[in-house]
């Protein structure tokens, strides 16, 4: 469904996406995993043909740089930052996007029912909660029943309950045969939804693995941020990856996701490689519940 070949995107001297290639097959679900600044969002924007880039991307066989409009008609997109016209009413907003996608108001009503937003049509977008806005974005993405759904950190602004609802909806979409591509920082979401994980760092594709290969254990996962001596962070990332850890590297430090009962392991591995860790903090704990594990196995 999506075929990316040697995609490179530069902003001035910075290379945001660097010679990246992958293929997303029909009904497959792929997660983009990587730290902030890894190039996930830029890659998504290239796939949608919003940014010009070097390389080639086809969506449903259509080159996005040549036939962007046709390619985008196959994709429902949920952005990271939800940007609607705040003064517009929910009903008008969804009807506007329905018109853009060439579907009638009946479709708009159908997707509003699907995301439990019926009855809120007269509310102004600015009066909606974060979760409701997220559901509105999902409704807009689904409005013309596109075969591919692309989501950029769809749960980043939601609380635990909102996250659960969105993940559940996405799971149903995946099970109904939709092709999913999503960026996420959360191992539980990736376990629940993805069949493959593209690990990105500094614009490059580091590995293409299954969630189980990235996090082999089924116990709770904790993300630790390690503060390492200047200039050794890249070699530390390599050492940790060689030791089998899922690592993200960004300007704020090096993040590593580990099972909750093996937190000392990254520190030991780095000490063995003579890399000094100045400090560390534990960012969050993610429970890999039965649903996530079931999702990971399906």
């Amino acid at each position, binding site marked *: 469904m999506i075929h990316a070949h040697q995609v490179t995107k530069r902003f001035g001297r910075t290379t945001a996406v660097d010679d990246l290639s992958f293929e997303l097959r*029909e*009904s497959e679900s792929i997660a983009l995993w990587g730290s902030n600044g890894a190039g996930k969002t830029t890659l998504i*924007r290239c796939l*949608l043909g*919003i*940014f*010009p880039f070097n390389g080639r991307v086809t969506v*449903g*066989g*259509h080159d996005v740089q040549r*036939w*962007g*409009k*046709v390619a*985008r*008609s*196959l*994709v429902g*997109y949920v*952005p990271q*930052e939800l*940007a*609607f*016209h705040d*003064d*517009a009413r929910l009903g*008008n907003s969804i009807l*506007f*996007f329905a*018109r*853009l*996608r*060439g579907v009638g108001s009946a479709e708009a009503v159908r997707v509003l*029912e*699907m*995301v*439990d937003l019926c009855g809120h049509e007269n509310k102004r977008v600015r009066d909606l909660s974060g979760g409701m806005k997220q*559901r509105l974005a999902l409704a807009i993405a*689904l409005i013309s*029943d*596109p*075969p591919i759904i692309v989501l950029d950190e769809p749960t980043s602004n939601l609380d635990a309950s909102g996250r659960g*609802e969105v993940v*559940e*909806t996405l799971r*149903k*979409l995946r099970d*109904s*045969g*939709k*092709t999913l591509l999503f960026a996420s920082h959360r191992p539980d979401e990736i376990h629940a939804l993805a069949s493959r994980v593209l690990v990105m760092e500094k614009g490059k594709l580091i590995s293409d693995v299954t969630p189980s290969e990235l996090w082999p254990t089924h116990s709770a996962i904790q993300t630790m941020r390690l503060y390492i001596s200047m200039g050794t962070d890249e070699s530390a990332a390599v050492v940790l990856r060689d030791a089998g850890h899922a690592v993200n590297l960004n300007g704020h430090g090096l993040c590593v996701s580990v099972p909750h009962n093996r937190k000392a392991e990254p520190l030991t591995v780095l000490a063995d490689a003579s890399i000094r860790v100045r400090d560390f903090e534990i960012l969050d704990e993610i429970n890999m519940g039965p649903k996530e594990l079931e999702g990971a196995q399906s």
Partner: protein
Amino acid sequence: MSVLASTPSAHLPSVPSTSLRYISRTRSILAFAKREFRDALASRWFMLYTIAFSVLAIAVSFMSLAGSGSQGFAGFSRTTAGLLNLIMLVVPLMAIIAGAGSIAGERERGTLLYLLAQPISRVELLLGKYIGLAIALCCSMCVGFGLSAMVLAWRAGGVGLGSFAMLVVFTCTLALAMLSIGMLLSVLSRRSGVATGLGLFVWLLLVFVSDLGLMAGTVLFKLRVQEVFSIAIFNPLQAFKMGVIVNMNASLDVLGPVGTYASHTYGNALSWILTSMLVLWIVLPLMIAMLVFQKRGGI
């Protein structure tokens, strides 16, 4: 959230035919135009401009009638002349600011990215927004002109109605030209504040500086009358002013030697030349805006 939806489409669409592409393009442009029109009508600045323009137009109408000394003496024609200066100040400002905020505003709010992720082209987005704003601007001016016309018809009958109608048409053309310039500035600017600032600068340049500059240039460089005329008509406001005066069947002699030269040299063709200049100011900035918006890519 309740149960979902259908299975994915079994057959992916092929590249649509020319007629289907035309339908889809028209649909997208109309969707944007409709939304832009509705948003403009709902916005406070638009209301404010409409009210201000209407009040001033009615005031000018009353003053023209009072100045005539008798009811019915060329009411519409006098008012047309009176409104000319008001229009040259208010309408370009209104149109250029509306255009400047369009794309840059979407960019600043973050909504541009979301719109470009939909199955639309950049040209459709730009054209749709232009058409929506153009209709809203014309409606706003028609309210002002309509109220003014009602006052005049009530007090002075229908004398000079033709020149008044022509003024409405020319004013709408001027508004469309300034809207095009505003859209171009909007495409070129990252922030709506910058676009609005540039818009105000261009407005000042066209309204005040170009006149003063032309006068200074004429003295300094000893420009010939035909050169002054050629430079003047490149200012859309001057083209508008001369166009209205010519079409009122009045003599351009009121504009001094340049007007006399233009009247004698171009005769009946002058009206077409001035109208063409205004139309050029609609088409050219809009075309450049489309090209820049499309070529530049990104958000």
